């Protein structure tokens, strides 16, 4: 996607509603997709998407001095908004994994669809502290490497690497305790069905 023009951004900063609506329209899908990783509750998700655009609006005057590609800037804002949401909400240790999976019989026959896989991973990650959850969400869902995670979070790469290592270890323990890898054994060998 090409960069929004300087004129469009200037008009947004000056309060032009049409320009602003055009900018939101242009990036809403990208932001919506990213924020879906932070909440799968539709109401919360929609609220988060709005929060990203509100924060974007306030940061527009600063953005024009950074020289960073617009999409990168927007992704950083979305990451910040999502992370803040998790920190505010706290850890969801009490969240139980979906009944559908708990009742699944162990064995290689169990397969799943992409939306179920996304929900399962989301619920497993929800049991981690916010910082661990963030690095793994960016790595697993957005396929970010350590450099990209560092950019989006503002943490240095050494810290990101350390967090990733610890977070994966914790997630492994959580996944094993849930017995989901046994119930959905086919995933171990990459035998997955994509929607």
């Amino acid at each position, binding site marked *: 996607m090409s960069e929004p023009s300087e004129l469009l951004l200037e008009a947004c900063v000056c309060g032009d509603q049409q320009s602003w609506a055009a900018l939101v329209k242009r990036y809403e899908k990208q932001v919506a997709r990213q924020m879906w990783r932070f909440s799968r509750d539709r109401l919360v998700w929609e609220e988060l998407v*709005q929060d990203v655009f509100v924060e974007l609006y306030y940061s527009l005057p600063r953005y024009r001095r950074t020289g960073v590609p617009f999409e990168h800037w927007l992704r950083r804002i979305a990451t910040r908004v999502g992370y803040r949401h998790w920190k505010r909400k706290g850890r969801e240790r009490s969240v139980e994994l979906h009944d559908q999976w708990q009742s699944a019989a162990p064995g290689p026959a169990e397969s799943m669809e992409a*939306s179920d896989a996304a929900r399962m991973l989301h619920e497993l990650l929800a049991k981690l502290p916010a910082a661990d959850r963030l690095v793994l969400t960016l790595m697993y869902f957005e396929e970010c490497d350590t450099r990209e995670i560092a950019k989006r979070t503002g943490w240095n790469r050494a810290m990101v690497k350390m967090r990733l290592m610890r977070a994966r270890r914790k997630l492994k323990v959580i996944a094993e305790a849930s017995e989901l890898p046994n119930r959905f054994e086919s995933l171990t060998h990459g035998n997955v069905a994509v929607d």
Partner: protein
Amino acid sequence: METLQWIENLAALARSEQVPAINVAAPRVTPVVYRLPRWALSVSAAGSLAAACLLLVMGLHAQQSVNSTNSAQSSETMTVLFAPLKMGVN
């Protein structure tokens, strides 16, 4: 090791999920009036930083919509900035 591989494969499948459709109403950009007493503007240059902080603090606590400008008292000057208001989702 197998568990980590299982998680990697779960993630690979999860990434292909279709995210629900969304139609976001752009947060409405609405003029907001930040009230600032005149005396705050008459301070010397050294006080300009304090005035800026005051503007910020008062702006946060005393912001009003343009509709309320009629009731503004003559002892105050106003700075109009723009701020987005969340509008919900269609």
